[in-house]
C-alpha cells in the first residue's frame, strides 16, 4: 500500500517536472503565432485551412491560427470595435467588410500599407475594390473577395415569351406583367429584392438612386443633393410592391430569403450578389440551367443601371507584434493562387481581374467573363469613415417609405435632418 502510494507520488512528481520542462522548452523555440480573424466561407470546401498551412510551410517557425468571427456582419463589426477600441492585440490579420475600411483607418486601428506596397501592386484588382481599400490617399487593406449587384432572370421564361433581359425597370415591370399573365401561376412572383430594414436595403436603395441619376452623398459631403430624385426613386420601389410586381414580403426580405424564392422557381427576376449563381446551378436546384444574369436595369429617363460593389478586404492590425509577417500573410491570402483556390472552392468572386478569364476558373464557372464586365461597371457605396452611421440612420426611413407609412419626400427629409445632427459632430 505504502509502496504504491510512494510510486504514485513519484510519478506525479515526474509528470510535474515534465510539464515544467515542456513549458521551458516551448518558450525557447517559441514559434511566432499569427492570428487571422475571418468569417467562415460558405461553399463545397473551405479552402482557407490549406492556404494557411501553405503559408506556414513557406515561413518556418511561423504558425497561423485562423479564428472564426461571429456569423452576422453586425456582430463582426461589434467584435472588432470592442477589441480594437480596448487596445487588444489579439489578432494580426483581419477580414474586413469593405465598408469598414475607412472607419477603421480613421480610428487608427489599421496599419498603413502604402509604404510597403510595390508600385502597381494593386493594379490587377478591380479599381472599385482598390478605391474601397483607400482612404485619405493611402491604402489600408488588400482586396480579397468581390461582390457586385446583379439582375438574375429566368432565361427560360424570357425566351418563351421572346423577351430580352430588360434594360430599364419600366421594361422589367412590363415583362413581369406579360409573363405572369401568360403563365397564370399564382405562386410566381415578379421581381424579388432586399427590402428588410438592414444594410442590404441601403444597397438596394442606393442602386435605385443611381439608376435615377442621384446619390446619397455628393462629393462635397452634401446629404441628398437632389432630394426630389431620391424621393422619386423610393416612390418607384414602393410602387413595385404596391402594384404586386414585387411580393409584399419584400419588406422583410434579405439576400437569402429572396434567393430561396427565386431558387425554388417562384420568381422571374432577382437582384442579388454573384454567390447565388453557383447555388442556382447546383445539382438539386429547381432552376438549374434556367438562370442567367444581366446588369441591373436603369430608369427610362435616368441613367444606366449600376450594381453596388462590396466584398471583403484583409487589413493588418496596427497593434500586431509582427507587422511584416502579418502583411506577408495578407499578401499570400490575396495572391492570385490563393484567390483562385477560394474561387474554385467557395461561392466567392475574386478581386483579381485575370482570374475571370483563367481557364481553370472558367471551366467550373463559365459565367465569369460576363461577370467581369458587370463587376467593372459596379460602383462602391460612399467611401467615408462614417458609413455605418449613415446607413443605420437612413435604414428606418427608407424602410418606412417602402412599407408605405411615410411619404418618400418626408422619409428623405427626416433622414437628412437626423444625419445632419450626427454628422455635424464627426466632420
Amino acid at each position, binding site marked *: 500500500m505504502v509502496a504504491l502510494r510512494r510510486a504514485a507520488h513519484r510519478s506525479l512528481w515526474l509528470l510535474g517536472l515534465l510539464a515544467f520542462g515542456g513549458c521551458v522548452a516551448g518558450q525557447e523555440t517559441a514559434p511566432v503565432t499569427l492570428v487571422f480573424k475571418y468569417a467562415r466561407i460558405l461553399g463545397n470546401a473551405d479552402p482557407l485551412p490549406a492556404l494557411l498551412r501553405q503559408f506556414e510551410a513557406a515561413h518556418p517557425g511561423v504558425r497561423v491560427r485562423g479564428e472564426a468571427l461571429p456569423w452576422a456582419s*453586425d456582430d463582426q*463589426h*461589434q467584435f472588432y*470595435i*470592442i477589441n480594437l*477600441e480596448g487596445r487588444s492585440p489579439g489578432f494580426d490579420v483581419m477580414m474586413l467588410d469593405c465598408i469598414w475600411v475607412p*472607419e477603421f483607418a*480613421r*480610428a487608427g486601428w489599421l496599419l498603413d500599407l502604402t509604404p510597403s506596397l510595390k508600385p502597381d501592386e494593386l493594379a490587377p484588382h478591380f479599381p472599385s475594390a482598390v478605391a474601397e481599400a483607400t482612404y485619405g490617399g493611402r491604402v489600408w487593406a488588400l482586396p480579397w473577395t468581390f461582390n457586385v449587384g446583379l439582375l438574375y432572370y429566368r432565361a427560360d421564361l424570357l425566351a418563351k415569351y421572346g423577351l430580352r433581359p430588360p434594360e430599364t425597370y419600366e421594361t422589367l415591370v412590363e415583362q413581369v406583367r406579360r409573363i405572369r399573365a401568360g403563365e397564370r401561376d399564382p*405562386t410566381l412572383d415578379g421581381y424579388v429584392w432586399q*427590402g*428588410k*430594414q*438592414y444594410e442590404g436595403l441601403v444597397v438596394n436603395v442606393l442602386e435605385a438612386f443611381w439608376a435615377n441619376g442621384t446619390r446619397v452623398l455628393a462629393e462635397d459631403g452634401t446629404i441628398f443633393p437632389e432630394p426630389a430624385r431620391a424621393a422619386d426613386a423610393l416612390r418607384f420601389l414602393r410602387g413595385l410592391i404596391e402594384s404586386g410586381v414585387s*411580393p*409584399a*414580403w*419584400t*419588406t*422583410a*426580405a434579405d439576400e437569402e*430569403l429572396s434567393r*430561396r*424564392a427565386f431558387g*425554388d422557381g*417562384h420568381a422571374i427576376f432577382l437582384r442579388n450578389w454573384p454567390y447565388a449563381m453557383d447555388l442556382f446551378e447546383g445539382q438539386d436546384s429547381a432552376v438549374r440551367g434556367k438562370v442567367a444574369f444581366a446588369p441591373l436595369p436603369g430608369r427610362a429617363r435616368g441613367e444606366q443601371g449600376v450594381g453596388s460593389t462590396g466584398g471583403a478586404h484583409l487589413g493588418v492590425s496596427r497593434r500586431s507584434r509582427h507587422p511584416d509577417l502579418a502583411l506577408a500573410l495578407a499578401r499570400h491570402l490575396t495572391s492570385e493562387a490563393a484567390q483562385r483556390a477560394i474561387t474554385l472552392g467557395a461561392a466567392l468572386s475574386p478581386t483579381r481581374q485575370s482570374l475571370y478569364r483563367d481557364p481553370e476558373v472558367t471551366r467550373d464557372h463559365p459565367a465569369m467573363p460576363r461577370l467581369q464586365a458587370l463587376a467593372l461597371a459596379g460602383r462602391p457605396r460612399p467611401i467615408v*469613415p*462614417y458609413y*455605418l*452611421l449613415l446607413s*443605420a*440612420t437612413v*435604414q*428606418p426611413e427608407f*424602410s*418606412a417609405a*417602402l*412599407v408605405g*407609412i*411615410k411619404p418618400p419626400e418626408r422619409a428623405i427629409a*427626416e433622414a437628412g435632418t*437626423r444625419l445632419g*445632427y*450626427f454628422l455635424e*459632430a*464627426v466632420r
Partner: protein
Amino acid sequence: MTGREAADRRRALVCVAPTVLALGALTVYPGVWVLWLSLQRRIPIFDVSRFAGFENYAFLAVDSRFWSAARTTAVFTLGSVALEVVLGVAAALAIQTQRRGRRLALSLLLLAWAMPAVVAAKLFEWLYHPSAGLINVALGRHAINWLGDPLVALPAVIFADVWRTMPFVAILCYARLLAIPADVYEAAQVDGAGRLGTLTRITLPLLGRILLLATLFRTLDALRAFDIMFVLTGGGPAGTTETLTVYAYRALFQTLQLGFGSAVSVVVFLLVMAVAWAYLRLLRAGAVTA
C-alpha cells in the same frame, strides 16, 4: 452609546462593506459614468469628445425615431405582459385541474422558458417565413407578411415573446395554487359558491401578491427587451419594432456614438426605475392590507 454598541456598529459596517463596495463598483460607478457620458458628444473613433450639456437630451426630445422607439417599448411591454399574465394564470389553473400528466405539462412549459431568447427568436423566424414558414403554409401560401408589415410585425414579435415567457408566470402561479389549503375550497363549496365565484372570490385574490411580483419581473424585462426583436426584425420594418434598447444598441455599438447612446440608455434606466418604484409601492400597500 456604550462601548459594546459601538463595537456592534463597527462590526455591522464591516459586514455591510463588501456589499456596498460591490454595488458601488458594479452599479453606481458605471451608472454615474454613463450619466456623465450622456452629457457629452463623444465618438472615439473620430476623436470627438466634448462636453455638450443637455444637447443629446434636447435632440432626443425632438427625435422622431426616439419617440417611435418609446412608443414601441410601451406597446410591447403592455401587450406582452398583459397576455403573459392572462395566459399564465389560465395555464396554471389548467394544470392544476389536470388529473394526469401534470409533470409533462410543467416540463413542456419549462422548456420554452429555458430556451435562450435568441434561439426562440430564430425558431420564430422560421415559423414566420413568408413562403416556407409553418404558420403561412398552414394558412395557405403567402397569406401574411409577418415580419414585413408595419401593422403585423410588432404583434408577431409580442407573440413570440409571450410564447417564451408566459411559462414563467404560469409556474409561479401554479406554485401558489398548490399552497392554497384545500379546506378553503371546501368551505366555499359548503357556502354554495359556484366555480366562477370560487375563481373570482378565492383563487384570484390569493394569487394577487405572486401575480404582482411576476408582473413586476416581466415588466422590467419587457422594458429592456432586445434580443427577440433584434434577431427577428432588426427593428424594422420602418422602425416599428425598434425598442429603446435596440435604439441604444445601434447608437452605442454600431455607430459608436457613446454620448448619444448613453443618453438613450439613461432614459431607459429612468423608465425602469420609475416602473420598479411604482410596483414596489403597490406591493408594500398590498402588504399592509393583507
